[in-house]
């Protein structure tokens, strides 16, 4: 293979990688993008418009292949697009779910689309409550990037003037459905906000993309590209520049260094031929999502970097945070019993949110620090999953199933974990994946702070439901297992102190000037908001910094 030299090699094509690829290509840099999986074919791989009876196992999937991940990654709609055999191990006592999508675009093909900005309440949380460290970036500094990202991807919402949620520039919001209006009344009585979520789903045509047609099956992928994903929104632009070479089925083993310990290329395995290849670049961007990014860097050992590349701080792989997810309450709205069905399932059921309302005035109002948000969800969905709530059989049962159809509601909690020394990823000394690459080993437990949020949310959501005239049938017992949210952060945190942080305030590794991280690995922690919009904003900022470094002759 000829030894050609690219300007930048980008590992990963998800939110972080996709934004880097597009930004770098636009600036005229020659980019080689490595992606672990194949390109999806929308007409074939996005089965979002199929009815369940059009699939062999009616969407449940073959019982012979038991699920080993969250429902939305393991059903017949998305068969073959999420990986089933990711090798990773967990430390004793850790239960970590690690769903991976290796397809081009990664998780952006199927993401939840909730797109709230982080604010100074998040970036300066440590100063407010004394826990951990502030981010090295202020809201004022990142705000213009959020604005540009919102314009690129199209976010539907309203200006809400919430202290925890800086407002942005929005397309018209999703309309409230019956269940939203009923729950909103309940939330009002309980003193909790209930507002349109911030959804990267187009309510108007936007930048050449068609508007959403509200069919509902979004987490199976959108075959018309009416919500943001990198294959629909960013990669075509990068390809049009003529500056991108995308290599698919290229599973990265490690980053290669030169005699000075600087990054010179990337070693990867072609998953078809199982051949190992190397590709060379002046700068490297790792954007494989935070655990995989850490695994690649930890596996990049050399004379210069005996514990993994750019790990002089010893913090590589450390400070893993995650969103605690779980249904904290569910039940039904008797007002809607026996009413006609209604197209509630327009964004996989969740179009509204209860944005963080805790610890706003004072950082210590509650028994926990920071805060969480809640996504209410419900109405007529594709499958009536409330059968356990109805006894018996026969015509009565059948009628009750129908009467109940518009009524179910549930509350999904999104609570950030606090940084902890005991939550991290390292390399398993014994286990390798089927390509011979040493596997990641995950160490993670929920901490008291997030478990207190979980308990708190159970009380409040039950109260909102009751105040709305609803019937509470289930009060969350266990949150989902860690990893379920796919919102992990940390492992390459950014900071001003090179001894304590892997990357600097631009996502550039402190040790290796031509190595950057462009995913949530650089985040100091999770917040109550989803991660993708912020990954895009920070990746845009880092990518423009890289362009500047090239212009200044530093790479």
């Amino acid at each position: 293979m000829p030894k050609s030299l690219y300007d930048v090699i980008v590992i990963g094509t998800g939110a972080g990688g996709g934004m880097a690829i597009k930004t770098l290509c636009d600036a005229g840099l020659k980019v080689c993008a490595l992606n672990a999986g194949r390109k999806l074919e929308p007409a074939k791989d996005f089965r979002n418009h199929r009815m369940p009876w059009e699939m062999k196992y009616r969407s449940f999937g073959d019982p012979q292949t038991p699920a080993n991940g969250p429902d939305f990654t393991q059903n017949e709609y998305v068969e073959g697009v999420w990986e089933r055999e990711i090798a990773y191990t967990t430390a004793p006592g850790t239960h970590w779910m690690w769903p991976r999508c290796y397809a081009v675009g990664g998780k952006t093909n199927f993401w939840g689309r909730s797109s709230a900005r982080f604010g100074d309440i998040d970036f300066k949380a440590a100063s407010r409550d004394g826990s951990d460290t502030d981010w090295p970036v202020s809201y004022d500094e990142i705000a213009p990037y959020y604005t540009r990202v919102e314009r690129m991807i199209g976010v539907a919402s309203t200006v809400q003037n919430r202290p925890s949620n800086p407002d942005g520039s929005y397309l018209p919001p999703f309309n409230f459905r019956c269940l939203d209006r009923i729950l909103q009344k309940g939330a009002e009585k309980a003193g909790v906000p209930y507002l349109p979520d911030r959804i990267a789903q187009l309510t108007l045509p936007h930048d050449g993309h068609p508007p959403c047609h509200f069919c509902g099956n979004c987490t199976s992928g959108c075959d018309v590209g009416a919500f943001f994903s990198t294959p629909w929104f960013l990669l075509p632009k990068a390809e049009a520049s003529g500056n991108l070479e995308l290599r698919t089925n290229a599973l990265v083993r490690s980053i290669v260094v030169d005699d000075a310990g600087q990054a010179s290329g990337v070693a990867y395995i072609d998953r078809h031929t199982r051949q190992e290849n190397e590709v060379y670049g002046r700068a490297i961007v790792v954007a494989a999502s935070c655990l995989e990014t850490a695994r690649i860097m930890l596996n990049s050992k050399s004379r210069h970097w005996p514990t993994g590349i750019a790990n002089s701080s010893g913090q590589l792989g450390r400070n893993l945070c995650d969103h605690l997810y779980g249904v904290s309450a569910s039940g039904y709205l008797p007002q809607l019993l026996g009413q006609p069905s209604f197209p509630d399932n327009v964004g996989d059921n969740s179009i509204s949110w209860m944005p963080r309302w805790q610890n706003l005035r004072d950082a210590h109002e509650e028994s926990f620090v920071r805060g969480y948000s809640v996504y209410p969800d419900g109405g007529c969905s594709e499958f009536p999953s409330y059968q356990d709530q109805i006894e018996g059989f026969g015509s009565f049962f059948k009628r009750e199933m129908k009467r109940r159809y518009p009524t179910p509601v549930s509350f999904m909690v999104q609570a950030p974990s606090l940084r902890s020394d005991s939550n991290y990823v390292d390399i398993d000394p014994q286990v390798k994946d089927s390509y011979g690459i040493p596997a990641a080993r995950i160490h993670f437990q929920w901490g008291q702070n997030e478990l207190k949020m979980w308990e708190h949310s159970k009380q409040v959501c039950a109260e909102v439901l009751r105040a709305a005239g609803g019937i509470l049938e289930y009060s969350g017992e266990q949150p989902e297992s860690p990893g379920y949210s796919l919102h992990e952060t940390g492992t390459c945190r950014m900071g001003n102190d090179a001894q304590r942080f892997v990357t600097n305030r631009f996502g550039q590794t402190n040790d290796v000037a031509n190595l950057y991280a462009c995913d949530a690995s650089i985040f100091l922690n999770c917040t109550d908001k989803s991660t993708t919009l912020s990954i895009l904003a920070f990746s845009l900022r880092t990518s423009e910094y890289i362009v500047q470094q090239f212009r200044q002759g530093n790479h």
Partner: protein
Amino acid sequence: MGGQGVERREVLRILTIAAAAATFPGFSKWSFACGHLSNAIMHVKPATYRPLFFGASEYALVERLTDIIIPRDATPGALDAGVAEFIDLMVSRDSELQRDFRAGLTWLNTRSVKAQGKQFLLLLPARQVELLEPLAYKAKFRTGEEPGREFFQLLREYTVMGFYTSEIGLKELDYPGLKFYGASPSCPHQDDPEHLHLPPPQW
């Protein structure tokens, strides 16, 4: 209501792929993957279904039980939707399900012979219902029937899965999804935020 629901599938007809259809086992009562793409498939006459896992008498029992759980009344039921075929397919793919179903069907017949002197299928419908009620309603639970209750729960779960993922089942619910809507559907009861004055329930 928001928007008129043009059948999205119609529009997508040309986009979708029919490949899988030919390889499926012989379902007789429900159309399968993208059947609407092929007229030939649409016009196949219902054949007698040959179970993949269950023996003939077991299959007849499963079919009868699904019929009792979701009967044909004013609207079609489990028999019309071919739910037993779905259950047979799912069970044929999972040894644990096979064990549980076989044991459950045997339990039910044994119970039936003991209580009524005949196998379940030979009983009058009213007697069949009498046997099932203590398995299905808390107030009627009897000690010693735990295995029967567990089986009934499993059977009902699979019946619900099979029925409400069939075309007939989703029509029963009037499933409003997977259609084109021109605007984000909006609550039609603007004057009644708490929804306390809705028209009387239709069902």
